């Protein structure tokens, strides 16, 4: 288990991390969610040992994370970085050799990955001649080439077209099935909802909520109800019900939230009491995005990067 415990880190005037604590079960895909500047990159850098935390510990399988050999870890930084004037395959061999792989083995594995991502023809090209999307795939190969047990990725899906997103997703799932632990940060909450067994939401250097995705979605105690009756068009009665918020009035159906104190069944009863037919009644957990908005606020409002004197870290 990757156990991140009470991490604190201060840069000049900014408290970047303020007691970050969460666990990642091995063999899981884990989503690390937060706005820019919330502390995702700093947390990852501390986990990987690039930065020292002021306080707190990081353990992997009951041993200090730093004590594990470097080949345990794979890291895909948010800023894509390759040696632009170096050939792709040669470059991947170099990364492999840094983790102690024999060059021939790195060569063969890199070829397999290039094949799999359908970019074999770029093997002997300089990285700078590749499109952004293809560079990103090379970056992912560089991250996993040495077969790390824990893979941390900062926004791995940004800038990929749908075809490449699908390729990357399937690679994620295959790695997970081979027992690897994947942690990635993302803004795309539907992606996290789709891929992650567990998530953590971080805001202003604190973990707002964490746990299995389903539990996190239920953590607000709120439920989403989708309701359609034969007497649609008049929804004011819904608005007058206690513990109910109408989130999406629609022609087809109306979506509403029932908060923790209320009961969706009361809504159903009220609808039936009004007469007419209930055409649709559906109770669901809120989406991650809804949880996020409730816990953190709208992403759009939080897009501002924390201004760190001397640059972003």
């Amino acid at each position, binding site marked *: 288990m990757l156990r991140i415990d009470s991490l604190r880190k201060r840069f000049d005037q900014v408290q970047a991390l303020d007691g970050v604590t969460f666990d990642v079960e091995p063999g899981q895909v884990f989503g690390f969610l937060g706005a820019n500047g919330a502390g995702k990159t700093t947390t990852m850098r501390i986990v990987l040992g690039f930065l020292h935390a002021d306080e707190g510990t990081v353990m992997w399988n009951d041993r200090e994370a730093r004590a594990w050999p*470097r080949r345990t870890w794979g890291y895909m930084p948010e800023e894509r970085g390759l040696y632009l004037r170096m050939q792709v395959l040669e470059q991947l061999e170099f990364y492999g050799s840094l983790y102690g792989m024999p060059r021939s083995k790195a060569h063969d594995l890199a070829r397999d990955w290039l094949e799999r991502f359908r970019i074999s023809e770029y093997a002997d090209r300089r990285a700078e001649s590749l499109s952004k999307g293809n560079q990103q795939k090379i970056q992912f190969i560089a991250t996993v080439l040495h077969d790390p047990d824990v893979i941390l990725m900062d926004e791995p899906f940004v800038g990929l077209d749908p075809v490449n997103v699908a390729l990357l997703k399937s690679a994620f799932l295959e790695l997970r099935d081979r027992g690897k632990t994947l942690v990635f940060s993302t803004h795309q909450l539907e992606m996290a909802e789709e891929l992650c067994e567990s998530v953590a939401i971080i805001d202003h250097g604190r973990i707002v909520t964490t746990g299995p995705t389903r539990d996190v979605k239920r953590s607000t105690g709120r439920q989403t109800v989708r309701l359609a009756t034969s007497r649609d068009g008049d929804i004011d009665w819904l608005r007058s019900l206690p513990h109910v918020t109408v989130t999406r009035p629609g022609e087809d159906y109306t979506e509403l939230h029932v908060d923790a104190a209320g009961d969706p069944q009361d809504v159903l009863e009220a609808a039936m009491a009004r007469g007419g037919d209930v055409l649709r009644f559906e109770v669901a957990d809120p989406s991650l995005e809804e949880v996020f908005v409730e816990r953190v606020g709208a992403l759009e409002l939080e897009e501002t990067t924390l201004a760190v004197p001397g640059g972003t870290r």
Partner: protein
Amino acid sequence: MRSIPNIFAIARREFFIRARTRTFLLGTAILVVAVVVVAMLPVITRYVDRSSTERIGVWVGVEDMASDPVADLERLLNTSAGGTSSSSSTPDFTVTRYPDLASARQAVIDGDASAALGIERSTGGELAFTLYSEDVAPGVERTAVFATTSLAIADRLDRLGVAQAAQAGLFAPANLEIAWPDPEHAGSGPVAGQTGTDYLLGFGLSILIFMLIVLYGNWIAMSVVDEKSSRVMEVILNAATPLQLLTGKVLGVGAVALTQYAAILVAGVAALLAQGPIASVVLGDAGMEVALPAGLTIGMLLLLGVFGVLGFLLYGVLYAAAGSLVSRQEDVQAAVMPLALVSTGAYLIAVYSATGLLEIRDSWMAFLALVPFVSPFMMLSRVTAGVATVPEVVIAIALLVASIAIALWIAARIYSAGVLLYGQRPGLRSIWRMARTGM
């Protein structure tokens, strides 16, 4: 930890990436050609000289001379003519005897000879010389005066009845020794005009080390910034520690520098050694003296290697640290400025002391030559000038090694904080904090 393999892998990448570039290959080729040309200069100048051999026509209107004046003249003109030493195998003058004055003068008019000399005996019994020439260069005239005076003196001695054998002793050069004015100063002294080349050698070696440090130091800094600006740094940092990265980079660029210097040195020495055979082919004689420049011994080359490598390592790790503080190539020059100033200052002191602008024997110069940032530039010229003692050299090397260890420690801390730092250039205070905390 896998420090050594990682350092090797990083150095290896750095080496091949750099050594493969067209600029490096072309630059090395140009330097090699330049060095070969410089090394071949003696042969080339002699080749040019040979075509300018002066032919002198002589008519001897005197019968009673004890020895052959033609042979004597040739020897006199070529041996000490006006002080120009003639270890040269190509004679500066050839002397030809003509049966009469008219034909000798005609030879000058026709261009077969550059001058004609008539030798007669005047009524007083003295020899009288007349030089027939269309234009008399001052050097030639001086040479002619010296040679004819010698002939005249020999003739007077003959007429006084001094035997030929005794004359040889009379003409033997005096014994003149040249020594340092300072009685404290031991050693061979500035004898035989050799110190000139020694100073030149010290000067040259300082230039070599200065180029090595500034040129390749800049490469290191630029290479660090390259990894930062392309953001590949974080990818590498997951696999290698900043210390490994720093060390590998300095060693890799150092290996490139070493390759270039070795190519130049091998080409230069080979050209010097090939001078004899080449001279015998081009100039048609085998007697040419082949020697490395005075003072350029194997020991001196070793010392150049030691101070070159150590000086490069000291400055190299600091250049890497300086590079880690900025994130754009445009800012590199500003970041390495302090290092450039220190190395330039040290270099200038070394050059000024080697060429005599600063007194190399002053005690503060001896002290400066021990200071780690200065010693790579100064020690070599002090050794070539014969003013450095063995303990001084040993102390300088020991201090250099110790300062490299300290510099590496500081640089690694600045580097590990600097490489993740983007945006504004940090001020002195934050650099100090990085060096202290490492993060």
